[in-house]
């Protein structure tokens, strides 16, 4: 059945206005921690189409400039659109040629306006964003939801990570951690996400920002252990089930 409103729109030469009511290709959690020298972000590289592993090498962590990185979960096409917005801003900085670059806090504030404005149009960008950076020699880590809710904290996790990794962070995180300790903590967080969130794959990246600049690691896999006796024969220890 043709939607009469849409049909009318076609006749008048305009497309019907379409709003996002559900995401298509999505990324899951992004994790982030501050440490002694800066910020680390971590995410897997999966773009899920429902329960299909649609894109297996999608990089969800991106460099914005030498002092800022951004990570995203949620609708990945919306994320790529957001990256074009940031690209435009960076180009403006380049063209102005006045040595001023957007700082992590400016990017964070800007993105919170973008996401809030879109939700206010009832046409949300379906993402949870994490912004990491170093500003005035201090680490900055913030997150923004699709509704425009935003906060900065010493450690952050979006999506399932909020339930799975954040408790680990709350227990073990210290602002004065070394890079090794912080990486270790992120690995723990990623591992538990991989074990418990079926939308996570074992192909991860970690992005780092320090005063020296930004780096995004090559994808890597974590050691996992599945051969617990209870897994091999789950029914053996629970008689009467299964």
């Amino acid at each position, binding site marked *: 059945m043709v939607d009469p409103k849409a049909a009318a729109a076609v006749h008048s030469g305009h497309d019907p206005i379409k709003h996002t*009511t*559900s*995401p*298509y290709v*999505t990324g*899951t959690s992004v994790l982030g921690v501050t440490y002694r020298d800066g910020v680390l972000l971590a995410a897997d590289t999966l773009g*899920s*189409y*429902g*329960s299909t592993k649609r894109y297996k090498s999608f990089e969800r962590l991106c460099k914005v400039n030498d002092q800022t990185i951004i990570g995203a*979960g*949620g*609708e990945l096409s919306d994320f790529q659109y957001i990256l074009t917005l940031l690209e435009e801003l960076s180009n403006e900085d380049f063209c102005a040629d006045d040595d001023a670059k957007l700082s992590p806090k400016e990017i964070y504030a800007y993105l*919170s306006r973008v996401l*809030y404005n879109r*939700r*206010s149009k*009832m046409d*949300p960008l*379906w993402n*949870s964003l994490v912004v990491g950076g170093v500003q005035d020699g201090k680490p900055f880590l913030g997150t923004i*939801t*699709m*509704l*425009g*809710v*935003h*906060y*900065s*904290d010493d450690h952050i996790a*979006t*999506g*399932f990570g*909020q*339930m799975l990794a954040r408790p680990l962070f709350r227990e073990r995180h210290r602002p004065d951690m070394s890079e090794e300790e912080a990486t270790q903590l992120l690995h723990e967080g990623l591992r538990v996400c991989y074990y418990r969130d079926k*939308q996570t794959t074992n192909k991860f990246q970690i992005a780092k920002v320090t005063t020296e600049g930004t780096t995004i690691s090559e994808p890597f896999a974590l050691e996992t252990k599945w051969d617990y006796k209870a897994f091999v024969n789950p029914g053996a220890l629970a008689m009467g089930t299964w």
Partner: protein
Amino acid sequence: MANVAYQLGSSGYAANSAHSAPHAHPSWSPYDNNGGTCVAVAGNDYCIVAASTRLSTGFSILSRDVSMIFKLSDKLMILSPGFQADARTLHKVLQQRYIQYQFNHSRPMSVAACAQLLGNTLYYKRFFPYYTFNICAGLDEQGKGAVYSYDAIGSHERSGYAVQGSGKDLIQPVLDNQLKAASPLVLPPENWMSSLPLDQAVDLVKDAFVSAGERDIYTGDAVEIYIITKEGTRREVVELKKD
């Protein structure tokens, strides 16, 4: 847009990405409730302003140290529990208007002027409201405490004290009972400002937050308190339980 009945509640993709296929969402809501409690008490020569610092959504704690108090100046503050994104936007709008007022009038905005502005700003979005439950507080032009409380669409009233947010039901009756302020219903009218000395009022506010933190899951972590007198403004933070 005005015909849409919004369902409040958490609406992140996370909860839904647990399902299997890209499917139509049951209903997407532009709103969330991020919880939090705030209190303001007006005395004859002081104003106490306090707000919890926990940011929540659903049963999750997003952060333990997010301020709900927006300082327009040392003597004028807006407290906004409810939907954090709306609160932040409202604060930014008011900040702009506050600066423009100073350019136009060459003096800072009075609490009364700000209170009216806040009411108008909220009502401007009558049919797509800011989901925030504000208190506007500070010292008025006579140096007396001034507290105004609002609903989401701008109706407001000046009072001797106010409580807003998730812990309102727990704290309001305690303040009604303990603040030694005459009811505004008493005739002939009596001074409804708190007659408590400043230090006792501060202690009462702290106790109220500790108690609310015990029973309200959206109140906890810490309470941020500003004590405004004509000598100046002092900030205190009292830790609350983190559970």
